[in-house]
């Protein structure tokens, strides 16, 4: 530039230096300026890096999956619950009808420190809640050092509204669940009840507390409410008719062991368990153990047939009572002749049953009863479970009495389960009050030969067709069964007047689906029954009425006899009882 400038006309020198002309400095000043130029560059670099990091993090947040940070970010969500979450799960029947539920209510409590005038508050509150004593309440509200006093639990909405309207300071509401049983006493002994704090105190409510408390899925029982209603009505009618002190009835599905109905009378209202006498809470079907009487001959015969000591053509000498030490075993419907096995059952011969049992022996009988569960405490989803009573020394006299249902006490559920096993082909399904889930295998074990069960079905049909159980006959429903009339034990002996009349039945007996057991406690004969109060007169008609009403409901309308049914139920009645030396001893 300096060289070219020499040949050019000299331009007038500007007053101010050209704007782009750098100021050149030397020495210490240059250093200062240089370093002050470098600082902003450094700062800009740092900021650029920081922004880059933030930017990268933003990209990362925007693109990465939220799993890692989901916990940190709480977004309001739509309600996921599908229903009211009560403190106890609902209990429903096998078809989903509500049996027990918890509904929200308000409970009234007071904080005495906040109550301004205890006297006035008590008097005003009494106007709304008449059952509360004003003096009493005043004393409780004036108690020193208390900060919480329950006034009344589970108010009705109306009471809550009125108390709210009083506007007394120091009184508050607490939301609480109240357990209610819409069907009242219908299901009393099955569901039991829960106390005011939501704790199960009986029945299923107590037995499966762990499943109900805090659970949200309804618990399905095996019970069918419709059958429960029918059974209760018919049993009550019979108890009234025969002035009995009580009764029990059970319907069991013989193929699954599910209890479809279980009624014990008298009963109570689980909504107010305290309002009925405590005795009414006694569950005859599961806690009560009874000597069942002749219905046990079912097991004596099944035992002998299964052991092979007798077959359908065997016969037994029933001409004379059996005398053993100071006892005599007699027949109620004495035929005074030799009886074939079907006749022993049909005429309910104690002598015949005793002799059949003796041939099997004490060990065999005990083993058989144990196999059928008759010696084990009841296993069921209830806290009220009875323990069978049986002799410690199983002597011949016990063998004989147990064969016709005396000397061994079991619960009616034991009996139902045993009869179901006898008729269903010999498979013992543990009884249950909870609905079996579809598709799940049904627990059970083969304890009898299928042929034994086949023969027993024929014999049970015979009793209803032409034996002591004729009053249970319902044409087309094919009921088979056995009557039982047990004298009740009292003061070391048996009472003729206090009886337990029962009937066990299965239907349709050619291919059983249901076992029905009816038991009436201390029935008194009426004019209509000519003074009789036996199982055949009292309990058999109840079974007949129950079956006739339940048949159509469970999809079993009456059917006419077919050759197939006749073949399945035929008993060789032509065979005459033959005397044989072994039975005549």
């Amino acid at each position: 530039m300096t060289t070219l400038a020499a040949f050019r006309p000299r331009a007038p020198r500007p007053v101010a230096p050209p704007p782009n002309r750098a100021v050149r400095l030397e020495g210490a000043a240059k250093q200062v300026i240089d370093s002050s130029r470098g600082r902003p560059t450094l700062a800009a670099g740092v900021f650029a890096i920081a922004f880059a990091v933030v930017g990268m993090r933003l990209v990362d947040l925007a693109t990465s999956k939220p799993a890692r940070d989901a916990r940190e970010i709480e977004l309001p969500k739509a309600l996921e619950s599908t229903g009211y979450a009560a403190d106890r799960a609902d209990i429903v029947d096998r078809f989903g009808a509500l049996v027990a539920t918890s509904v929200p209510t308000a409970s009234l409590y007071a904080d005495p420190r906040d109550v301004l005038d205890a006297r006035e508050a008590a008097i005003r509150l009494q106007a709304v809640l008449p059952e509360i004593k004003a003096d009493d309440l005043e004393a409780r509200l004036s108690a020193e050092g208390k900060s919480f006093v329950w006034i009344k639990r589970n108010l009705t909405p109306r009471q809550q509204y009125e108390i709210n309207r009083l506007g007394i300071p120091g009184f508050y509401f607490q939301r609480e669940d109240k357990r209610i049983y819409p069907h009242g006493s219908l299901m009393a002994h099955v569901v039991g009840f829960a106390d005011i704090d939501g704790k199960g105190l009986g029945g299923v409510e107590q037995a499966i507390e762990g499943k109900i408390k805090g659970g949200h899925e309804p618990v399905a029982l095996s019970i069918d409410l419709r059958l429960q209603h029918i059974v209760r009505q018919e049993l009550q009618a019979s108890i009234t008719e025969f002035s009995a002190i009580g009764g029990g009835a059970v319907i069991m599905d013989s193929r699954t062991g599910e209890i479809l109905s279980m009624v014990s009378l008298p009963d109570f209202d689980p909504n107010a368990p305290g309002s009925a006498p405590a005795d009414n809470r006694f569950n005859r079907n599961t806690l009560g153990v009874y000597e069942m009487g002749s219905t046990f001959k079912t097991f004596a015969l099944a035992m002998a047939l299964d052991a092979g000591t007798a077959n359908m053509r065997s016969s037994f000498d029933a001409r004379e009572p059996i005398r053993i030490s100071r006892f005599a075993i007699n027949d109620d419907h004495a035929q005074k002749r030799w009886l074939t096995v079907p006749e022993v059952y049909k005429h309910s011969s104690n002598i015949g049953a005793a002799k059949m049992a003796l041939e099997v022996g004490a060990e065999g009988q005990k083993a058989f009863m144990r196999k059928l569960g008759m010696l084990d405490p009841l296993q069921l989803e209830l806290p009220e479970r009875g323990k069978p009573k049986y002799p410690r020394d199983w002597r011949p006299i016990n063998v004989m009495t147990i064969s016709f249902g005396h000397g061994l006490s079991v619960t009616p559920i034991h009996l139902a389960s045993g009869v179901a096993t006898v008729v269903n082909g010999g498979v013992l399904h543990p009884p249950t009050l909870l609905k079996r889930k579809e598709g799940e295998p049904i627990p059970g074990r083969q304890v009898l030969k299928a042929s034994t069960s086949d023969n027993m079905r024929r014999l049970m049909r015979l009793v209803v067709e032409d034996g002591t159980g004729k009053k249970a006959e319902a044409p087309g429903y094919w009921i088979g069964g056995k009557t039982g009339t047990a004298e009740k034990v009292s003061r070391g002996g048996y009472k003729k007047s206090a009886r337990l009349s029962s009937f066990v039945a299965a239907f349709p007996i050619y291919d059983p689906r249901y076992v029905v057991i009816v038991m009436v406690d201390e029935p008194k004969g009426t004019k209509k029954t000519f003074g009789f109060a036996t199982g055949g007169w009292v309990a058999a008609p109840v079974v007949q009425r129950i079956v006739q009403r339940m048949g159509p409901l469970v999809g079993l309308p009456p059917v006419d006899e077919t050759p197939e049914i006749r073949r399945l139920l035929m008993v060789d009645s032509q065979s005459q009882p033959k005397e044989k030396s072994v039975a005549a001893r």
Partner: protein
Amino acid sequence: MIRRSTLFWLLAAILIGCGLYQLKYEVQAKEERLARLNRQIQLEQEAIHVLNAEWAFLNRPDRIADLANRHLELSQVVPAQFGRVATIPERSLIPVVAEADAPVAPTAPALVKVATTTPVKPPVKPQPAPKLHIAEAKRSLGTIDLAQVRAVSPPKAAGRDVVVVVDGALLAHAQR
């Protein structure tokens, strides 16, 4: 140039800021609405729960039985009332023979109709008609329109049952 870009960024910042504010308030409103709805759902669920209990209470079998007894003219089903479809007889074309004191046989029009629709075929030779008791059926079934009666069974020898087949294959079973 610098001024223009500054203006642009400033404007963008203001717009985004406003948009963000708008969005925030919208979200807040939505959250409030969600909370309100959730609360409402909870209340409804509670109400449903209580109503379910009431429904179960109103469906007590003894109450239903009582209501049925009072308001329905139905009674307990008895085994004799069950039948199979296979056992229902075909609609009878047997003419109803009136007794001397009975009105004119009411099935005549139906028979005529059958005859006219199939004129080629000779009319089915009527089987020997059982003695049917229109008058009796009329007495026991006063309310049934006799013009619709297609066949009447003879009264059973022992019982006094009269079975009347009315149009539409309805089986009426009268007992005197």
